[in-house]
């Protein structure tokens, strides 16, 4: 494997910079902290549980709001738990949905045990096989710049697997009250549509 030079916080910060009306769903754990660290936003729906559900929440949103972009930011472990979602998304072909997997090849919340991707299981290839028209594995800043454009504006569904350093970074905790996160999101979405 080539030397990993991407850092998760930088990846998320660059992708969410100047995000406009992007709707963001995060997987639980480190990806939620990464998204919060990039700046809390009413159009972020952070998961604190229900592991494996992030991509499907993204699909429900994307189907309901075809004129807005939806981005799911999650980890390799969470994506693996909902891997069948890629097949389900492949059937519906939502052009406005992107999935960004921060692949540190570890289960970070439970002690950095190796995940399946550490053994070479290729989830970008799974996404491609599930009819994602764009499915890339990236590991450099130049590739990240391209990936940002793909996630924000290319006809999808778009799948980006960003290979990131398996590092521990300070926790930046998003709101934890699920009702508050839901209401805040729904109200913000209502406002941008008026």
């Amino acid at each position, binding site marked *: 494997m080539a030397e990993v030079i991407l850092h998760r916080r930088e990846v998320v910060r660059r992708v969410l910079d100047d995000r406009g009306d992007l709707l963001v*769903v995060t997987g639980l754990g480190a990806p939620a902290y990464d998204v919060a660290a990039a700046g809390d936003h009413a159009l972020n*729906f952070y998961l*604190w*549980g*229900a*592991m*494996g*559900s*992030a*991509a*499907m*929440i*993204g*699909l*429900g*949103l*994307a*189907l*309901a*709001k075809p004129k807005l972009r939806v981005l799911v930011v999650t980890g390799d472990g969470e994506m693996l738990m*909902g891997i*069948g*979602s890629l*097949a*389900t998304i492949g*059937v*519906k072909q939502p052009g406005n949905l992107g999935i960004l997997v921060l692949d540190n090849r570890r289960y970070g919340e439970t002690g950095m045990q190796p995940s399946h991707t550490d053994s070479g299981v290729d989830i970008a290839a799974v996404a491609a096989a599930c009819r994602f028209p764009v499915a890339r594995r990236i590991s450099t800043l130049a590739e990240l710049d391209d990936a940002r454009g793909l996630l924000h504006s290319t006809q999808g569904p778009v799948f980006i697997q960003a290979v990131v350093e398996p590092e521990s970074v300070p926790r930046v905790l998003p709101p934890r009250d*699920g*009702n508050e*996160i*839901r209401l805040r*999101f*729904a109200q913000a*979405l*209502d406002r941008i549509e008026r």
Partner: protein
Amino acid sequence: MDEEADQTALWPDQIFGHLKRARVRQVGYVPDAGHSRLIQRCRDDPQIRDVVLTTEEEGVGLVCGAALAGERAALLMQSSGVGNCINAFSLLKNCGFSCLVLVTMRGEFAEFNSWQVPMASITEDCLRLSGFVLSRVEHEDEVDEIVGAACDMAFDGLTPIAVLLSQRLIGRKKWPK
């Protein structure tokens, strides 16, 4: 295996009528004989996005995503699928999402496959413990009223509700001799 639901029964059309009346726009399902006619009606309707799932728990995320965007969704599943959903159902309780689930029962009335029975026997308890209000339909003449009431409760009352459609209603599963 030959599985045929009665394609002349009216009750799937009554359920479909309630989903339309309630302005349901997304329907998630795993293919199922008991729901086959309802699924086909949803697939044929241009206002409804039908989403075929690889496992029922995906449907819970789908419903929550739709609800975040202010859109109504429903889930169709077999009793065996309820067990697949349990952790995902925590989304409903934690975030206050409503949910309408229409469950076709296997593993009860005249079931020939004993492997279906253990999950069927705990389906109601699983749903109740997961925060659902339950309704059960035994006879065709109850479908319209009970499903209509369930739609009102799910979408106006914002209460997660599951309607169990009994195996007696759906009809015995035919076992090829």
